[in-house]
């Protein structure tokens, strides 16, 4: 057992000027590094309240599961560090006491439509050496909310928000580029239907994709959707959320 192994740390600390966070781990401060992040928009304006999620990326080893295959897991001795920190009003945050290594950063802003690079691009990589403060500017682009309402007067969809083991009778998402896909999350369910939401970039040609083996849908004009993968083209413009509404018209024809 090494002292570098720590319990998962989840700290969101907001201070008056700069936000400081420190993961609960037990490495001596002599070898600890510091992450300093400034979150801005593409015009270099600070984004206050942004949440940075950081995780140390471990070296891995292959462990045997079967004769042919194994699976990768963090290598022995790899230090753990994971957590979240909130930027202050100036878009700044500092996380101290991090074990040296390569980190991956994700970012989102509660209640605002900034695009998380871990969804729409790649995690932001930053190397944090021991005893050094590693600065990183994280630039977030503003997208819009895609909101999809599916009215379900017959109650044919599960009457609960999609959970890990809830049967998926309807999937909702967007297709873009050469077939890339992002799912919209089922955010809520009420007596009349389901609400799905996803933050999407502007200026990108999308098709809204609804898929189901179980139910048939129409749009609000009554036109039936192709449930093997509807292709409703749209493109978001800045500042204007995209909203769609559909209705479950019955069970899918088998």
């Amino acid at each position, binding site marked *: 057992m090494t002292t570098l192994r720590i319990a998962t740390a989840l700290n969101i600390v907001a201070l008056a000027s700069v936000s400081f966070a420190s993961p609960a781990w037990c490495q001596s401060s002599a070898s600890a590094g510091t992450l300093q992040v400034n979150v801005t928009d593409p015009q270099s304006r600070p984004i206050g309240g942004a949440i940075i999620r950081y995780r140390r990326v471990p070296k891995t080893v292959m*462990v*045997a*599961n*079967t004769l042919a295959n194994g699976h990768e897991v963090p290598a022995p001795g790899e230090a753990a560090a994971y957590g979240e920190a909130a930027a202050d009003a100036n878009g700044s945050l500092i996380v101290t006491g991090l074990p040296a290594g*390569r980190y991956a950063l994700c970012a989102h802003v509660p209640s605002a439509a900034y695009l998380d690079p871990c969804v729409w691009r790649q995690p932001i990589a930053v190397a944090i050496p021991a005893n050094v403060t590693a600065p990183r500017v994280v630039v977030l682009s503003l997208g819009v909310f895609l909101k999809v309402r599916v009215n379900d007067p017959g109650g044919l969809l599960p009457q609960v928000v999609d959970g890990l083991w809830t049967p998926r009778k309807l999937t909702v998402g967007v297709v873009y580029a050469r*077939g890339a896909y992002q799912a919209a999350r089922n955010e809520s369910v009420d007596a009349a239907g389901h609400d799905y939401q996803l933050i999407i970039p502007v200026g990108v040609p999308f098709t809204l*994709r609804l898929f189901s083996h179980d139910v048939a849908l129409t749009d609000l004009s009554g036109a039936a959707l192709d449930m093997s993968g509807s292709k409703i083209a749209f493109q978001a413009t800045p500042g204007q959320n995209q909203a769609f509404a559909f209705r479950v018209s019955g069970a899918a024809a088998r």
Partner: protein
Amino acid sequence: MCVRTVARLCVLVGFLGCAGLSSATTIGSSSYLQVNLSFMPFTIYDYTHSADAANQFSTSCPVIDGVHVDIRTCFKTILGNMASQGVSGVRIFVNLCDTSLPILSQAFTSCGEAYTSNSWDPGSNPTQAAWIGHVSDFFGDLRTAGIYNVTITLADDPAVYSELPSDATSPNMQPGLGHNCGNTDDCCPDTPTGIDPATMLPYMIYFSATQPFGVKSMGDGNDIIGNVWDSDASNQGYNCAPINPFFIGWNNEFGAINAMLAKAASNSINVYELETEQELNFGTFTVQGRFMYDNSAPESAGLSSGDTVDVVSDLRSLMTANGFDPGRVNWSSTGSETPSATYNSCTNVYTDYGRNTGPDEMAQAITAGHIGINSDYNMSIAVDYNLMCGGSDTSLMFVLPDSSTQPDIIDVHIYSQATGATNTDVQVQDAAATDFGDLPHFLTIASDTSAAVVIGETWGGTISTAMEGSLYCWAGNYLFPSGTPADNVAGFNGSALSGYTVTFRPWMELEDPSGVCFAYTSSSSNYQNVNYGGDGPYTPTNP
């Protein structure tokens, strides 16, 4: 518990006593026995090609008067031996585009070219006619032997086709902008780019003809681009992994599969399970979702760019059309072994035992659940126990675009052991009890308690002590005890899974270039034996 006590005594009295005590034990209360035959040489499955080293059957087949029998006779002999041991089904690996020499199984004659240059048309293609004819011969031989079930697994063909990153594209890439994997971050972070310092040549992306994505190195196709661990923990491999320009194409693949299903039906062989890839690992490779719902090659299925190929539904339709259960379209997963034979105290993001993460991920993928790794997993447990446990944050996990019902079969490959050590009989038995004991929890939370349970690969019936190069036949660096198969059964019998109807399918690989692990003899010491004379170690309760 009784069985467990017997096995512990076995360790004390030594192997000979152990074999005598454990061999009479049946597998659980209701069980079937199948075996893996592994790779099938369908191009040369006939009475003329010799089952010798040149065809990679150096010791797996009978030798009569110093002469190797032919390949078909070899298989007929072995199938007869298996049937006499209570084996009721076999699993075969089928290569469609293995162009390695000698050619052992190649169903398409333009492998390595675009899907448009290939077609499934045995009526006008004599190579395909011969190949599918041999498939039919094998199914006939299976029936003659009295074995009526087959599991068909499409095998990875070698990744030998390549292109420069600057020629590669990914689904993430907007058409018409001149982007490629060499000049944008539309491709996964672990895409090889630049100059390889070892060779001073540009890195290449490699492709297999039967995988709808790319890999990092020439070889077996396992070094997949979009590895979450090599991509700064990104779960976006499904979108960023390269599109395979050498992919044989879905309609071509469906054509060959449909022909195999038809031959099984015409020989009255039941297709027990159909899998187009094995041992999927959705925690590390979300791009393997393309085997179920493919966003990279819709045109090869007759669809338009931007469409998703619903491979699950297409395969289920083929099964139905040939009179088989569509719920047997499946993909196997693996159990997770740990350095501790008994540890199962951690819960994964799916609210299941950590050892069940493989089947959890499989079930999630097919139902448009969450795959990849959760950002708040517990790395300490991962380091200490090799299990992905802890956390509940699914917000950055990936969700596939289509959803289907669960298959009515669960296929998990389990080689129970304490990893990273030379195991004792007790450790193997304890690990088996833990592995099998955890599975009912998965069946419950996945609402799959009525599914057929198959331990699709597990320890072979007779452990070889031989070496393949510097590695033992079994599990590489460590020699496992000869009682491992019996320990496997004993552990199972002491677990909660023993109350289920379960099929055990021990591993065997006849087409074995080393020729040492499954050497054939006509005696009771045959390394192919699984239940010789009804004496175990794998004695099913059902024929």
